């Protein structure tokens, strides 16, 4: 009845006054309601702001809800976005034991219906007869006559559901429903605010972890250290129980653990995975992220015993992709069941990308270092060749030009043999036996006369020589074999040259034995003036820190003893 005063005129002033008075009283009551509502919302805001965490805040809301509606008890369910269900988060005057454990699907019970429809439900009596009602005996729901359920929404998103109940029938006024809705939307806004803050904190931790990782990979650390840092940081940032990086061995098509923050011996020593095998192997094969809710119950997971022992539950495997190829996988395990959000998976992908970049980077660095080292070695070997030739040049007149050139060629070939073997080995080492076999055959064959029948053999142990010593050993062998052919077997049509390798008290003894003419009586290698023996002496003593000796019993032994 707005603005009745003007049209009705002034014919019935008393009637008019009464009408105005009642209008004033009505407005007064409305104002009181509004002030009460404002006060209530003030209280809600203050309590929400003072609450230490979401749980504490919801507890306050549950209390206020009971007070403003004059009901017996209340409950609050919060919608879980990853699991897409409603979880009981707070109750007032009802058993607390189910908080955090009782969950409802959307559409399940009155609460689920309200969440789905985003529309309040008010039942004044016999609430349990409503078709939507679902008995939850643990919450004593079946004893309730009345039930008021309002959705908690923020920016048209469902955040949860707020319920109040009474044991006896209860009338819910429009005003009471309105008040509860106001409280619910306050609570919803607060929850969303807290969620945003949490996700900001999480994101900022993740971002700072990622930025630290990218700083790390551009530093000069070794690859192992970088990968170790990535797993440690990933585990810490995302609270994983075990985090590991496996790299693909292209040749064997196997995944090998390269880094993990886990101290578990069992985990570290678990066998390599074939590509396609178990979850990690499949993630690499398919080049996509795979998640498992519980590895203990996943039939494809290869290590259920290990998972049981270490208490592993959910798993996410993120392939490391470089130039559109999987080069490894980042594996993360939690101790409890966990559904990974898209956001977490995206962050983990970023970590995996960083790891992939680090690996590529390290490969390039290694390649460039190898090229530089190779360049240096080749230069040094060429210097050695030049030096050998010049030393020979200074001793002109020791033999014919033919002989000198043939000797030089053999020396160059023996140095080349080491380069050859080094190129074939992944390690920076050379097998002494292999080197000896090659040099024996190359040198002896180049010097033996066509009609000479000489047996060549390498016997004894084998050992790995570092590249720095390998060329010295090769040059020595070359000279000794050359001497065996040119001096020992010079006048023989048949014979034997044997290279024998043995170890005594940590020393290596390398002997070149021949069954030809003995060394002349009183022959002193140091005084002989032979370039070959001078080379042997120099290399044995200075480069190998060993010694050279020559003796004949029934066979001639030219031996070098040195520390490997």
């Amino acid at each position, binding site marked *: 009845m707005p603005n009745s005063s003007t049209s009705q005129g002034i014919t019935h002033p008393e009637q008019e006054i009464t009408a105005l008075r009642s209008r004033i009283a009505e407005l007064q009551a409305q104002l009181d309601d509004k002030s009460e509502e404002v006060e209530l919302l003030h209280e809600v805001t203050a309590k929400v702001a003072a609450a230490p965490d979401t749980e504490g805040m919801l507890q306050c809301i549950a209390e206020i809800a009971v007070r403003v509606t004059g009901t017996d008890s209340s409950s609050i369910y919060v919608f879980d976005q990853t699991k897409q269900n409603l979880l009981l988060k707070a109750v007032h005057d009802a058993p607390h034991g189910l908080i955090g454990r009782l969950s409802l699907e959307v559409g399940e019970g009155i609460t689920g219906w309200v969440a789905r429809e985003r529309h309040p439900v008010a039942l004044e009596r016999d609430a349990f007869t409503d078709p939507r009602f679902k008995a939850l005996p643990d919450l004593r729901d079946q004893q309730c006559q009345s039930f008021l359920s309002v959705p908690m929404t923020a920016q048209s998103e469902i955040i949860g559901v707020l319920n109040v109940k009474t044991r006896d029938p209860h009338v819910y006024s429009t005003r009471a429903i309105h008040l509860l809705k106001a409280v619910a939307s306050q609570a919803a806004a607060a929850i969303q605010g807290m969620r945003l803050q949490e996700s900001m904190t999480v994101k900022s931790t993740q971002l700072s972890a990622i930025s630290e990782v990218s700083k790390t990979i551009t530093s000069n650390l070794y690859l192992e250290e970088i990968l170790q840092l990535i797993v440690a940081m990933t585990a810490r940032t995302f609270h994983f129980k075990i985090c590991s990086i496996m790299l693909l061995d292209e040749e064997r098509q196997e995944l090998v653990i390269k880094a993990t923050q886990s101290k578990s011996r069992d985990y570290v020593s678990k066998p390599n995975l074939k590509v396609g095998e178990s979850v990690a192997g499949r993630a690499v094969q398919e080049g996509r992220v795979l998640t498992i809710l519980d590895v203990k119950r996943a039939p494809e997971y290869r290590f259920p015993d290990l998972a049981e022992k270490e208490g592993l539950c959910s798993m996410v495997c993120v392939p490391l992709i470089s130039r559109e190829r999987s080069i490894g996988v980042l594996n993360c395990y939690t101790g409890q069941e966990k559904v990974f959000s898209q956001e977490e998976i995206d962050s983990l992908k970023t970590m995996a990308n960083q790891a992939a970049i680090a690996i590529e980077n390290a490969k390039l660095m290694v390649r460039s270092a190898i090229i530089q080292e190779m*360049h240096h070695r080749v230069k*040094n070997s060429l210097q050695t060749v030049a030096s050998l030739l010049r030393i020979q040049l200074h001793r002109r007149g020791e033999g014919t030009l033919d002989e000198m050139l043939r000797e030089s060629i053999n020396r160059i070939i023996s140095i080349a043999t080491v380069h050859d073997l080094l190129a074939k080995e992944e390690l920076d080492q050379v097998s002494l036996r292999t080197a000896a076999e090659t040099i024996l055959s190359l040198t002896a064959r180049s010097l033996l006369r066509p009609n000479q029948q000489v047996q060549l053999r390498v016997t004894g142990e084998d050992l790995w020589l570092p590249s720095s010593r390998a060329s010295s050993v090769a040059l020595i062998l070359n000279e000794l074999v050359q001497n065996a052919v040119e001096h020992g077997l010079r006048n023989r049509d048949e014979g034997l040259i044997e290279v024998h390798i043995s170890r005594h008290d940590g020393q290596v003894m390398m002997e070149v034995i021949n069954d030809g003419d003995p060394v002349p009586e009183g022959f002193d290698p140091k005084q002989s003036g032979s370039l070959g023996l001078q080379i042997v002496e120099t290399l044995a003593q200075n480069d190998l820190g060993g010694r050279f000796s020559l003796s004949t019993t029934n066979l001639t032994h030219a031996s070098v003893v040195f520390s490997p």
Partner: protein
Amino acid sequence: MEKLRVVIADDESIIRLDLKETLQRMGHQVVAEAGDGRTALDLIRQHRPDLAILDVKMPEMDGIDAAKVVADEKLAPVLLLTAYSQQDLVQRAMEAGVFAYVVKPFTEADLLPAMAVATARFREFAAIAEQAQSLSAALETRKLVDRAKGILQDRHGLSEAEAFRRIQQQSMNTRKPMREIAEAIIIANELA
């Protein structure tokens, strides 16, 4: 080129042998040889050679680090042998006080000018250092004499020329350098 006493160092003995023979044939004397940087440094300190020829890549201490110490202690000119010819390495060598370098594989023709450059520059450097030292000593004397002159002028009301003449006279009479006389005057003035 005059006959030099040389210390050589290379971890590969064949190369060292060649270097030694080459130097000997050039008429120089190899007084000591080493297979690593640390031993080379000890030998250079011990023999004070006219030239040290060091390989860059050696165990224990590399040639550049050894050259740095040799330069700091003004022991001998250093000639570096290197398998690399990169700019940054040469830069590092120059900063370490190396006067010349030769890239492997070297020839006698490479060694000769490099050795000449290294020894000449070392000598030049030593001469300049000596000159700098004597100049700074002269400057110091001059400063002291000036202060002493000032004292005499103030105390005895002498002219500058007269004050200088007195210091000179005293130096001649006592057969002490003018610097000492000036110092004595300054000390006496401080005590009074």
